[in-house]
């Protein structure tokens, strides 16, 4: 996405495109601009409304606790009570800040999108049928409904989402995709969808409106990035249940502690009890949970992928099977010449020369690749058309199935499909050898496409020179990428229209686990259903209308933005870049989202150990001096110990906001390796870090008068 659109107001520059199979890559996200914290403060304060806080049980408990200590601090003022009160409120504010910052980034994007949603005047047709347009009238774009027909001409903004039913036009879609190069939209086929808010640059089209007012693509995008109707995803809900139950357990542990302590003659003040409670409940993850979810969606938006629901993002992390289109994902778009294979008695250079000659005017990618191969592998200088004065180029046609050149001296060269070229040789008095047939079969068998080259010198019979091996070029690094996916437990299936033989060869070269050759939409659908029957989750990309059923059936269906509106409607994600490789990144983002949640939960729970060692001796070593042994951090005083624990608890939230927004580092690897790594960092780290942090804070806090 270029910088002039979606991310304009967002502080995060778009992460550079990942190279497939690059070095250990990070599914990066945005960075935290300290200014964002300040800017989001008003929003964070607004969220203190208890009705809003109720949605987050952990932080709601902290807020109620803060209110209680405020009351206590007012009625029985002391430095300790006020310090604790202030830091408890800060804990709540920091949690809100995390959410506000995450939302803020979306809001900035939404603001840019809204600009594209300026009211347009639509030229509505009373009726339309092919070749027959009804009367035209001008209505507001917002009044258009499903099934209306509108005319849009060069320089006008398309008033709503729809399909082109007549005409062809170049359209500037930068408002949505950020891509400034115009795209062609035409009636029929898979390039018919247009999006409201985009601009027609040339020609005239008739569009059939396919969206209701207020439910257009842009509306949905705005809702998405703003998180307006963000619903909690299943894993988030389950985690919330766990956190709520831990909160209740600790609430009970603290509430019931008071009578026990009172009996022992160690009744605690309300401030201390609230402090103990806040220290024990999982505030770290409770504070960051919703920010993690919002940031996860945001990371997708930064990659120009719009997920229609958070559920889809989560499902992406669970994917077992990826259906990948061969062309564009696994192989480069076009076949390329890889080798010249001469028949016996023909020099390689002669074949290369003839091949180059015949391809000079061939502007197809295949033709150009022949010229390039001749130059790079055989050192043949590129000839220009002008050099061959009087040469007559024979273009490829579907009837002849070959192309070539007739030089001024009567020399003729042809290249093309085996049978066509051999017929040309025979027609010109030549006798193609058996050898050609076996060369052709060998190349076909290896998954390549053979092009036979033949020449006819003046006055002599035509003869075959050899065969050009055209092959699909598997993208660099894609093999390693698939190996990574396999490690993650994801099976890749290549979908191609090629015959099984060709498909098999490419599948082997690319290292996919399976392939579906001569695939029809029905085959795809059947494959998805078969995988799902076994409990697997399937992801796929698609663009055509005939992909729509499969996109809807797949657990993660990524529709290309260039595709039809039916496809976009059916999928649960839209890739604005229309890059099928993106699917792999989407899976990684989904996983990273879950890993971030799990890691911070572990961290949060492990933190409790150190807090116990700070607070429990502080509470009870007055009546039971033996408990002073538990003060292994050597904290200065009871008050400084409790204060330090609470300050640490608040600061760790601020400290982890960048991690929550960015997501924890994710390297594709097996489940065991991931678990070991994250357990070490966030489990062991969560045990140790607070001991250090609380001690350091105590070293400062002990100098505050009133906390000694």
């Amino acid at each position, binding site marked *: 996405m270029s910088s002039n659109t979606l991310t304009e107001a967002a502080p995060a520059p778009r992460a550079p495109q990942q190279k497939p199979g690059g070095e250990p890559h990070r599914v990066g996200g945005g960075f935290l601009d300290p200014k964002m914290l300040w800017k989001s403060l008003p929003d964070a304060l607004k969220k203190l409304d208890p009705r809003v806080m109720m949605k987050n049980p952990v932080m709601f408990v902290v807020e109620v606790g803060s209110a209680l200590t405020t009351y206590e601090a007012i009625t029985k003022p002391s430095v300790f009570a006020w310090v604790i009160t202030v830091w408890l409120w800060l804990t709540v504010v920091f949690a809100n800040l995390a959410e506000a910052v995450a939302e803020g980034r979306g809001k900035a994007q939404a603001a840019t999108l809204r600009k594209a949603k300026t009211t347009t005047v639509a030229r509505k047709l009373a009726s339309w049928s092919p070749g027959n347009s009804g009367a035209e009238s001008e209505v507001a774009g917002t009044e258009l409904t499903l099934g209306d027909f509108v005319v849009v001409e060069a320089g006008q903004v398309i008033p709503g989402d729809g399909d082109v039913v007549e005409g062809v036009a170049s359209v500037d879609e930068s408002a949505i995709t950020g891509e400034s190069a115009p795209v062609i939209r035409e009636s029929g086929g898979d390039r018919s969808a247009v999006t409201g808010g985009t601009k027609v640059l040339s020609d005239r089209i008739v569009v059939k409106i396919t969206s209701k007012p207020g439910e257009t693509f842009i509306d949905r995008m705005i809702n998405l990035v703003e998180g307006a109707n963000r619903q909690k995803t*299943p*894993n988030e*809900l*389950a*985690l919330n*249940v*766990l956190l709520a*139950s*831990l909160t*209740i*357990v600790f609430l*009970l*542990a603290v509430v*019931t*502690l008071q*009578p*026990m*302590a*009172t*009996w*022992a003659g160690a009744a605690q003040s309300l401030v201390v009890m609230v402090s*103990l409670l806040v220290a*024990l409940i999982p505030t770290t993850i409770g504070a960051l949970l919703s920010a993690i979810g919002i940031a996860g969606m945001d990371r997708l938006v930064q990659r120009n992928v719009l997920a229609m629901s958070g559920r889809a993002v*989560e499902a992406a*992390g*669970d994917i*077992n099977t990826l259906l990948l289109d061969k062309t564009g994902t696994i192989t480069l778009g076009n076949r390329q010449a890889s080798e010249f294979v001469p028949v016996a008695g023909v020099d390689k250079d002669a074949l290369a020369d003839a091949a180059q000659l015949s391809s000079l005017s061939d502007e197809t990618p295949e033709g150009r690749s022949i010229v390039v191969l001749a130059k790079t592998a055989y050192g043949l200088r590129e000839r220009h058309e002008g050099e061959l004065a009087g040469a007559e180029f024979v273009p490829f046609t579907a009837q002849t199935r070959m192309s070539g050149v007739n030089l001024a001296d009567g020399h003729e060269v042809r290249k093309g499909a085996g049978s066509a070229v051999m017929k040309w040789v025979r027609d010109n008095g030549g006798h193609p050898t058996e050898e050609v047939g076996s060369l052709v079969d060998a190349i076909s068998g290896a998954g390549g496409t053979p092009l036979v080259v033949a020449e006819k010198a003046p006055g002599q019979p035509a003869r075959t020179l050899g065969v050009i091996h055209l092959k699909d070029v598997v993208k660099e690094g894609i093999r390693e990428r698939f190996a990574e996916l396999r*490690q993650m*437990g*994801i099976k890749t299936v290549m979908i191609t229209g090629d015959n099984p033989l060709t498909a098999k060869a490419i599948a082997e070269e690319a290292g996919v686990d399976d392939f579906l050759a001569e695939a029809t939409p029905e085959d795809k659908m059947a494959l998805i259903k078969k995988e799902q029957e076994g*409990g*697997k989750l399937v992801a796929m990309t698609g663009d055509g209308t005939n992909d729509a059923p499969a996109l809807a059936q797949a657990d993660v269906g990524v529709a290309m933005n260039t595709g039809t509106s039916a496809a976009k409607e059916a999928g649960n994600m839209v890739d604005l870049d229309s890059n099928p490789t993106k699917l792999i990144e989407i899976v990684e983002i*989904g996983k*990273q989202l*879950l*890993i971030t*949640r*799990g*890691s911070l*939960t*572990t961290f949060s*729970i492990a933190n*409790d*150990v150190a807090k*116990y060692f700070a607070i*429990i001796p502080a509470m*009870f070593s007055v*009546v*039971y001096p*033996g*408990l*002073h*042994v*538990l003060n292994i951090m050597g904290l200065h005083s009871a008050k400084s110990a409790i204060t330090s624990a609470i300050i640490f608890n608040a600061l760790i939230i601020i400290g982890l906001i960048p991690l929550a927004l960015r997501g924890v580092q994710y390297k594709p690897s*097996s*489940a*065991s390796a*991931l*678990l070991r790594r994250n*357990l070490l960092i966030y489990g062991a780290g969560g045990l140790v870090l607070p001991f250090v942090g609380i001690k350091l804070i105590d070293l400062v806090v002990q100098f505050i008068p009133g906390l000694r």
Partner: protein
Amino acid sequence: MSDTWAGLLQVAALVLLLAVSYRPLGDYMAHILTTKKHSRVEKVLYKTMGVDPEADQTWGTYLRSVFAISAVGVLLLYTLLRVQHHLMMALGMPKVNADLAYNTAASFVTNTNWQNYSGENTLGYVAQATGLAVQNFVSASVGIAVVATLIRGFTRNRTDRLGNFWVDLTRVLIRLMLPFSIVFAVILVACGSVQSLGDHMTVVHTINGDQSLYTGGTASQEVIKLLGTNGGGIFNANSAHPFENPTAFTNLIEIYLLLVIGFSLPRTFGKMVGSHKQGYTLVSVMAIIWVGSLIFSTFFETHHHGINLADGHAALEGKESRFGIPASTLFMTSTTLTSTGAVNSWHDSYSPFGGGAAMFNMMLGEIAPGGTGSGLYGILILAIVTVFIAGLMVGRTPEYLGKKIRPTEMKYAALYILTTPAVVLIFTGLAMALKGETASISSGNLGPNGSPSPHGFSEVLYAFTSMGNNNGSAFGGLSGNTHWWNTAGALAMMFGRFLPMIWVLALAGSLAKQKPVPETEGTLKTASPLFAGMLLGTILLVVGLTYFPALSLGPLAEGLH
């Protein structure tokens, strides 16, 4: 042979016996719970009960069946205790008063066997044998039936049928509990335990003159008391009494009996889910906790420097000199890590950390290996919580044995881990807040002039930890036979037993409805040392941390210097 060597040998022999039993017993229990064949006796019983053995129940029906038999059990036992003076072989014992009868009925039906009475002074033989012993058999079997249902939740797919409670119960009773009990009762009798329906036995010419001794069906009740992890002894002294537990050898047998089903059930689990490794993972976590706790308390009992200094540095007060320290801590560790609660030594007299270990063992939820059935479902719930956190950390929707841990599953698991701590802490807090009820604390355990002491508080904390977790062992000292303590205790035992069963069965129902998720490289491996370690960490952190503040006012305050 020194005490230490005797202890080590006993531990070694015990571990060997348990290891040898693991496979055959585990597989046998799996067979009982899965076979389609009914024995002739069972068919007759089903006909009598009016049960169609082929009709599987939903989790709700299964739960109602559990509740029905338990409610009937409480009523029957209560009635029996109230009318025992009219029964045969009452030995002249009067009827049991209402709140004690209620407490005792709740206690035995919930597999707790908390005893606010001493058997030899309160109960006749009929009440013992047809009341208490019957519930010992039934409550132990109910636990196994419930865990069988949870395992079926994992093994069955897209169904709401989880088995038939009456079939499970009948089979466990007839094929497992009864034959085992008969065999081991004979062994105990052979080793010197008493078994008699005669009136008090008079022993003449003792130092204090003639003694009139209670005998009863001690050996037969002793076996199911341990095998079913019940713990309620015929005698007040429980397994410290020479009639119940005459020799070091019977001591070994008794510890074996109370551990064997709990430690073999993971094998049953592994067999039923089709992966023995899953069973080994769970049993290894259980074993690590058991061994760790045993070493911990044995160390503190042998390195004692509290007020009970008796023999060198060993705390021998309250321990049988026939058994010595290692065999006592071995029994104590095993009885508190299961839901047994039988004792061969007085936990109240343990060193602060030794007694604290007993409490902490129960607080972990009695999962190492835990009560019959209840131990396995307890550790399975904790495994689910662990899978959830660990699963997120590997970037997938958490799944355990091919079943996803979704919000519904998490809800029941969370309720489970919430329930017992809630029961223990609320009742303990309540007792401590009520002036009249703290009076039940033994004055000998209070500080000078009856001032509060950590040990006094430990009595109360221990009592509700024991009742809430359905253990049944007591910290001694506490006068529990009062109106309030009988009532509160009965409630704690019922909540602690039946609420978790609701969550377990509901969880089983929810799991069984799912379609299975295939295992891939990206799936968290739940049969691995790494997972076992994380499960152990979760048990200690999530469960243990809850009780840390309370423990700090009891054993920690008492033991730290």
